């Protein structure tokens, strides 16, 4: 490690005070939705398990999914999956240098954020 990397550098990372451009919002939402999706994995496998075990447990799952808390979680899940998918596709294009210019990157980030919100809205209409 050279001398420069050992020097104390100023760190200013108060996210609440930094104005977030649209690309940063797409990025942090990709991370937050990813963590939420990770936390939902055990619930999803449990739901799959119960839904395939027997007719009775299937009906129980359907009834549980109709509760207000489940509906809220389903909307969050729909937004997370949709935003993570759209933002992920955007990152795959950025990986191969497509859309890396500032204007294009800002436009695609805005599209991703709007599409994610749109899916959340559709999920809301579907479950409520």
């Amino acid at each position, binding site marked *: 490690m050279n001398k420069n990397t050992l020097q104390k550098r100023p760190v200013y990372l108060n996210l609440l005070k930094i104005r977030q451009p649209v690309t940063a919002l797409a990025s942090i939402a990709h991370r937050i939705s990813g963590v939420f999706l990770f936390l939902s994995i055990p619930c999803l496998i449990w739901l*799959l*398990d119960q839904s*395939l075990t027997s007719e009775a447990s299937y009906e129980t799952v359907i009834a549980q999914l109709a509760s207000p808390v489940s509906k809220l979680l389903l909307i969050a899940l729909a937004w997370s999956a949709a935003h993570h998918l759209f933002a992920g596709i955007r990152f*795959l294009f950025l990986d191969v240098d497509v859309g890396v210019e500032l204007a294009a990157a800002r436009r695609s980030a805005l599209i991703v954020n709007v599409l994610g919100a749109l899916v959340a809205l559709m999920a809301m209409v579907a479950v409520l």
Partner: protein
Amino acid sequence: MSIGGSGYKAWLIQRVSAVYMALFLIYFVAGWLVCAPQGFADWAAWMSSLPMALATAMFFIAMLGHAWVGMRDVLIDYVKSTALRFALMAGLAFSLMALGLWAVKVLLVGNL
């Protein structure tokens, strides 16, 4: 970035699993929209056909590889204590393996 290094492998696992999950998800949602399974018998019949059970089990395995790289990145970014980060990553690895085995049991071994 060195080809063959662990960072390159993680990067590649992330992308390959992402593409598989995206394709499966599009197939799954499209299948649902075209003809949503009606009731338990219909749903169980769809999920228990070997190609669908295999594709879904592969989806969960891809998801666990994907979650490993993503959550590892998150832990590396935010957990500064080496001991705590190591403990969390070990817990993460075992949890993901247990979840993978559970998904495989549900889809390919149990119930059906």
